């Protein structure tokens, strides 16, 4: 399905950004009945306001927007940096704050970053991790895992981990110590490059309206 020029198709990510995304959009008049995370309907339309919602897996969301299957979407900056897709980044929505951290078991902590020579790093974010270490000139072996990253150093799969951290509780519980911040991330409004040009007036207004709501809330 490709986006019809009358409609604005919005991709929403499953998971922790979902609820707040729906709330924010409804505040600026972009809503539909039954936009719920476990919706059985794949496409939820609002005929009146000409808005359509699709709900996607987080990592797939930038792809939907890049291809123009969705005009815009809301997604974490961490996913954007990891997936490296050709999409326009329009606005920092200032929620979903988290950071990508380099962490190590407490007893293996060393003084400086450069003290970690050739190392194995377990992560769900291989692209981001690789870019980070390349910049530092440190050779690493990146081991891509899909979850429970904290387990890797405990069982000897890797020395270090690079993982998303919100509060740091999980790291502390597993006796991991934070070494460095790879980057900070928040939720972003992204757009397809062609949709942004073809539907500029509507999208520009949406950005302006969202900006107002966010500024008001963050006062």
């Amino acid at each position, binding site marked *: 399905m490709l986006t019809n020029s009358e409609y604005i198709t919005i991709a929403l990510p499953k998971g922790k950004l979902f609820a707040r995304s729906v709330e924010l959009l409804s505040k600026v008049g972009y809503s539909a009945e039954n936009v719920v995370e476990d919706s059985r309907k794949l496409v939820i339309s609002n005929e009146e306001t000409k808005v359509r919602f699709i709900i996607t897996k987080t990592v797939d969301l930038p792809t939907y927007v890049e*291809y123009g299957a969705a005009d815009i979407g809301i997604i974490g900056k961490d996913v954007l940096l990891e997936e490296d897709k050709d999409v*326009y980044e329009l606005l920092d929505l200032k929620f979903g704050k988290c950071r990508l951290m380099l962490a190590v078991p407490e007893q293996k902590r060393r003084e400086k970053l450069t003290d970690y020579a050739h190392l194995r790093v377990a992560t769900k974010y291989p692209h981001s991790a690789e870019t980070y270490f390349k910049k530092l000139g440190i050779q690493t072996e990146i081991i891509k895992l899909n979850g429970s990253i904290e387990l890797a150093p405990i069982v000897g799969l890797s020395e270090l981990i690079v993982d998303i951290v919100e509060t740091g509780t999980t790291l502390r519980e597993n006796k991991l110590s934070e070494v460095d911040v790879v980057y900070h991330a928040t939720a972003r409004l992204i757009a397809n490059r062609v949709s942004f040009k073809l539907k500029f007036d509507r999208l520009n207004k949406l950005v302006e309206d969202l900006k107002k709501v966010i500024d008001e809330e963050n006062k």
Partner: protein
Amino acid sequence: MSTKDILEIPYGTKDILPGEARAKRIMEDKIAANFTAWGYDEVATPTFEYLETFSSCVGNVTEESIKFFDRNNRTLILRSDMTTPLARMVATRLKDGDRIKRLSYIANIFRHEETQAGRQCEFGQAGVELMGAVEPEADAEVIALAITSLKKAGLDNFVVSLGHIDFLTGLMEAADLSEDTAEELKKLVLQHDAVGLEKLVDSLTMAVALKKIFKKLLFLHGGEELLKELLTTVQNEKSVSALRNLAAIYELAKAYKVEQYIRFDLSLIRDFDYYTGMVFEVYTAGMGFPICGGGRYDNMMESFGTPSPATGFAMGIDRIMLVLERQNHFSIASDWDVFVAWDKKCSQKAIAKTLALRQEGKTVKLAVEYLTEAEAVKEQKLSACKSLVYVED
């Protein structure tokens, strides 16, 4: 080699099947005819050239280029655009003669791309270069030619985004940015990262008015009124003359009656380092990437020893085909007018009949074996012919 290997084709390439290939040819013919009607001479260049030819211009040879060696170990490159070979050709073979040169091409280009809809490693491009003139008349001509060619190809619903390199260059000079910062800023504009751009601008010291424009930059889309508005707010000479140049091109586009397709986008700078003036891209619903792009590149010819201003564009044949297909304007033209079948011993008579039909301009398939009338009816349908002529004594 196993059978499986024999049947594979390399990453990013594709077969063009019957019907599709015919439709492509018809479309290319229409575009080529339009180029000719506008006074452009078609040329062709080698599929591969020496790497040095391409690397003489900035930003041309990248990791995306497909390179290999000849038998003397000189590095060759599969052409990654057509502008460079054309510039080389003009510098070496067409130096003399008319100062104004209008050249066109339809050719395949090769680049390692992450393959996506309409983005292949080998893809067709149709384009023109107009060399020898700095006037907005030349720029307006290529833009109007791009628009009419897209219309001839069967598209109607598209938008031309028009910008100017010097608008941003002027702003950056006015802000007195260091080289590194300027590069970073350009990259953010290219990626259209409004969040990153705002952060960067906030971290710099410059006039408040300038900061405001930089932060708005990625949202500077609009019609004529946008140019007028910017002319009242932008101070530096370079940006102002860029805006005036765009206004002049727009007035000429009105004379070509194509202004309704054009929208200004002052954040447009395109992927190439070699653009020096106006730049444009064409977008249409149903395709997440531009279907056509171009601009003015006045410095490039100098690298080949024959300085000359130049402007031009290239459009993606495969992308246009994909769009037509998706917008349902594209019927795969795989049918023929007549199927000629023949009774025993009548094949010579059938040949004569076939030749006569083709003379009339009909597309004809002639049976290569004897068929009964019943078999002929079946075969006519199988071979996608609209009617049947059965030749007998």
